[in-house]
């Protein structure tokens, strides 16, 4: 139960971490949408029927502070808003001069009547989604100038900013009767006018806010976010120069931001370079997307690239502010841009569709971008209702969403890849470790086999010389029947002693020669019992002999054993003195007896000297040496052993 709740707790936490922010966002959105609270339809009046006329004048004039519509020429025509007033229509009614047309300025007058009494009390406001014009806008309420827009000429963001005009407390209870809109503009340009709403300020505010937010602020946010992601990609590229896609992505984000900047910048369209940038960056964006697509599907598409660069250069040069004004065929330039975008999408789609899923996502996104760009073009060229939506602002949202999707996939895949790699690395490491352990075990086994084989060899050699031959001769003697029990017992006892020493040699003596000699004495002591021979133990402390392994220990035991056996057999001594001495390069074990001695040289030459030769051979095997000094008063046998097995025997 406890563990279950402990397991559940992180789940609850993570759900809370998910639900809380989502709920927060929903609540904020609800506030935003729920503001106003009043239904605009019941609290405001939709003004869609208007009268209009166009007058001509010599140039731009400051709008007078009051205009009585009755003083204007009585050439009003009625129409339904929204509506685009074409220059042909506009100039059709006035005098059309063949010369100086560019200097001519038209004033388009739009009159709306609000003669109704159903307006609610409280602050009133006038709202219109859009007035599309290259000139100034002045609004007269009941003949009085109450609002002006674009006094310095058209603004970059005017198409995306709805009209909003507060009318105060309904003019002391008398609602406005007439609204006159006066638009001054070059005679050759279009004027687009959407319908108007007059009504309760609070409820209209909501409609206005929503329009402003969806049309300008949300795309601006998305555009900025896209740029931020682009900058992030740029920094990724700084670290990973070989991954060009990040740089290309930054390019797309940057050009996209620049291409859409005019949506949000409220400055007057006076700077020609900004206009140039606005038009051209759109084409650069198409080019950047093209390069990105090429990078994705990996095909150069030389002819399309060349055509794109050519179009880019031509339009770039033609639209230069230094050259004659091109605004009259701006529609054509935009059409070219739309066409190039379309062809980039189609060609990209053909090439990338079967290659990468990323390419497919990108192509779909770009197709959507081109599609949402088309209504923009229609709107710009007055083919579509002025009240419609500029969907082009959302190309950024689409590109942003699309690239975010790609990045999301890459990021998630990269994490999965890293995890997979780690898992496979761990597995390989484990395999390698197992392999190492296996080979190590094989090595150990081989070493063990070698050790066993060496040990067997050593014991075989030893037994062949000692125990084996003693037993064989004993067996032969028994078979021949020429051996008495006492002798037989003695031979077997000797064999047992041999065996004991063999076993003792395997005891770890830790390089202690004295312990080895002590063991030997302990084993041979019973042999001396009853012989009347006194053993004088005169040993001194000796340094450790690092080379004293079982094999060498057995050699030493056999050498000393042989010496004692010789004394017991031949010397007729009454005393054996065993002593040890430390010398510069070695240690010496000396055994002196007071027996009758023997001729060393003669013994070494005769067959009886086999034991002595064995001693010499064994001494050489441990890099030591043996020597005998014998006289009538006894024999002195000494065994010299090196302190260090590497030291030369001299």
């Amino acid at each position, binding site marked *: 139960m406890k563990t279950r709740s402990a397991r559940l707790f992180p789940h609850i936490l993570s759900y809370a971490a998910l639900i809380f922010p989502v709920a927060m966002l929903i609540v904020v959105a609800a506030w935003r949408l729920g503001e106003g609270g009043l239904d605009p339809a019941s609290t405001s009046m939709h003004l869609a029927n208007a009268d209009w006329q166009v007058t001509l004048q010599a140039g731009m004039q400051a709008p007078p502070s009051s205009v009585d519509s009755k003083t204007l020429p009585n050439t009003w025509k009625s129409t339904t808003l929204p509506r685009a007033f074409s220059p042909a229509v506009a100039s059709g009614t006035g005098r059309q001069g063949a010369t100086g047309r560019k200097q001519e300025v038209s004033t388009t007058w739009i009159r709306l009547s609000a003669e109704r009494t159903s307006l609610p009390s409280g602050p009133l406001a006038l709202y219109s989604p859009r007035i599309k014009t290259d000139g100034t806008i002045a609004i007269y309420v009941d003949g009085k100038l109450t609002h002006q827009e674009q006094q310095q000429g058209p603004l970059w963001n005017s198409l995306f900013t709805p009209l909003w005009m507060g009318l105060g407390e309904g003019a002391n209870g008398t609602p406005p009767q007439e609204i006159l809109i006066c638009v001054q503009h070059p005679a050759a340009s279009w004027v687009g006018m959407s319908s108007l709403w007059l009504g309760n300020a609070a409820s209209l505010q909501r409609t206005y806010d929503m329009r402003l937010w969806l049309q300008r602020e949300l795309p601006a946010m998305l555009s900025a976010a896209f740029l931020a992601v682009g900058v992030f990609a740029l920094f990724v590229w700084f670290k990973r120069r070989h991954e060009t896609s990040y740089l290309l992505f930054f390019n797309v984000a940057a050009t996209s931001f620049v291409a859409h900047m005019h949506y949000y910048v409220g400055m007057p369209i006076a700077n020609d370079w900004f206009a140039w940038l606005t038009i051209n960056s759109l084409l650069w964006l198409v080019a950047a997307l093209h390069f990105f697509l090429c990078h994705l599907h990996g095909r150069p598409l030389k002819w399309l690239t060349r055509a794109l660069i050519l179009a880019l250069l031509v339009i770039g040069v033609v639209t230069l502010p230094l050259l004659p004004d091109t605004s009259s065929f701006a529609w054509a330039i935009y059409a070219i841009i739309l066409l190039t975008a379309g062809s980039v999408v189609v060609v990209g789609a053909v090439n990338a569709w079967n290659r990468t899923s990323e390419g497919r996502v990108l192509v779909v996104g770009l197709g959507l971008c081109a599609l949402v760009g088309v209504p923009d073009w229609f709107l710009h060229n007055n083919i579509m209702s002025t009240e419609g939506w500029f969907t082009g602002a959302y190309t950024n949202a689409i590109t942003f969403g699309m690239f975010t999707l790609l990045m999301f996939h890459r990021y998630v895949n990269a994490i999965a890849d890293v995890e997979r790699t780690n898992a496979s690395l761990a597995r390989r490491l484990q395999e390698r470790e197992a392999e190492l352990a296996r080979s190590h075990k094989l090595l150990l086994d081989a070493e063990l086999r070698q050790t066993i084989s060496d040990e067997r060899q050593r014991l075989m050699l030893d037994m062949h010389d000692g125990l084996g031959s003693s037993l064989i001769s004993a067996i032969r003697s028994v078979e021949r029947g020429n051996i008495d029990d006492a002798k037989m017992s003695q031979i077997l006892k000797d064999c*047992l002693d041999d065996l004991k020493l063999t*076993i*003792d040699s395997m005891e770890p003596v830790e390089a202690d020669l*004295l312990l080895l*000699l002590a063991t030997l004495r302990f084993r041979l002591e*019973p042999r001396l019992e009853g012989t009347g021979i006194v053993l004088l133990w005169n*040993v001194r402390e000796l340094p450790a002999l690092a080379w004293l392994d079982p094999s060498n220990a057995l050699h030493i035991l056999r050498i000393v054993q042989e010496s004692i056996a010789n004394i017991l057999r031949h010397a007729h001594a009454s005393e054996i003195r065993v002593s040890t001495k430390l010398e510069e390069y070695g240690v010496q074990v000396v055994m002196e007896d007071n027996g009758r001695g023997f001729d060393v040289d003669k013994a070494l030459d005769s067959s009886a000297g086999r034991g002595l030769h064995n001693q010499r051979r064994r001494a050489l095997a441990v890099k030591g040496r043996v020597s005998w000094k014998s006289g009538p008063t006894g024999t002195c046998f000494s065994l010299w052993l090196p302190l260090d097995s590497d030291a030369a025997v001299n």
Partner: protein
Amino acid sequence: MQAQSPDSEPFPIHVAVVEDDRDTRDALCKIIQAAPDMRLAGTACTLAEGMAMLSGPPADVLLVDLGLPDGSGIDIIRATATQWPSCSVMVSTNFGDETHVMRSLEMGAAGYLLKDSSPAKIIDEIRILASGGSPISPIIARQVLMRFRQSGTEAASAPAQPADQSTLLSAREREVLDYITKGFTTNEIAKLMALSHFTVRSFVRRIYGKLKVTSKAEAIFEAKALGLSRD
């Protein structure tokens, strides 16, 4: 199985034998019965018989073979310590069997006997054992020294284990062991240390006693460390 022996001594040494090999057992019995100061108190061939024997009157010396057909002589050594506390246990062993000898000493044996020893030597060893001495060899001495060096350091690192006299070797005891590893006989050591031959042998017995205590203390310490024992 009671055996009669000439009752020449006022306080004969009662010797019991646990040995499964018939020849060895007969040889041992013969040697003991031949000794004027010894009396064969009983014989057993198996672990079960040996254990049954322990419920009878105690002997002074018990000769035990470790490799019994129905179990290890170690069990008899352990049981003797509680049932015949005054009895000295002597393990009869073959040469080169130092590991078992050490184990037996830790379990409370007071000495050990090589099976191929001469009858005189066997009688001698039994007498020394009965009088409170113990035999030793250089290799056993070496192993005892090493065991105390280990347990000395372990005792120092274990706070629950006070380093008291009953678990540490005295300087003289250590000296005796050092001499043994250098090849000196007990007689020579007695001379070198200006002690009696008997004192040196009794030193060895005391060392074996400490070996038993130490190994018990170690067992308890290990059991505590493993959480097997509460006290």
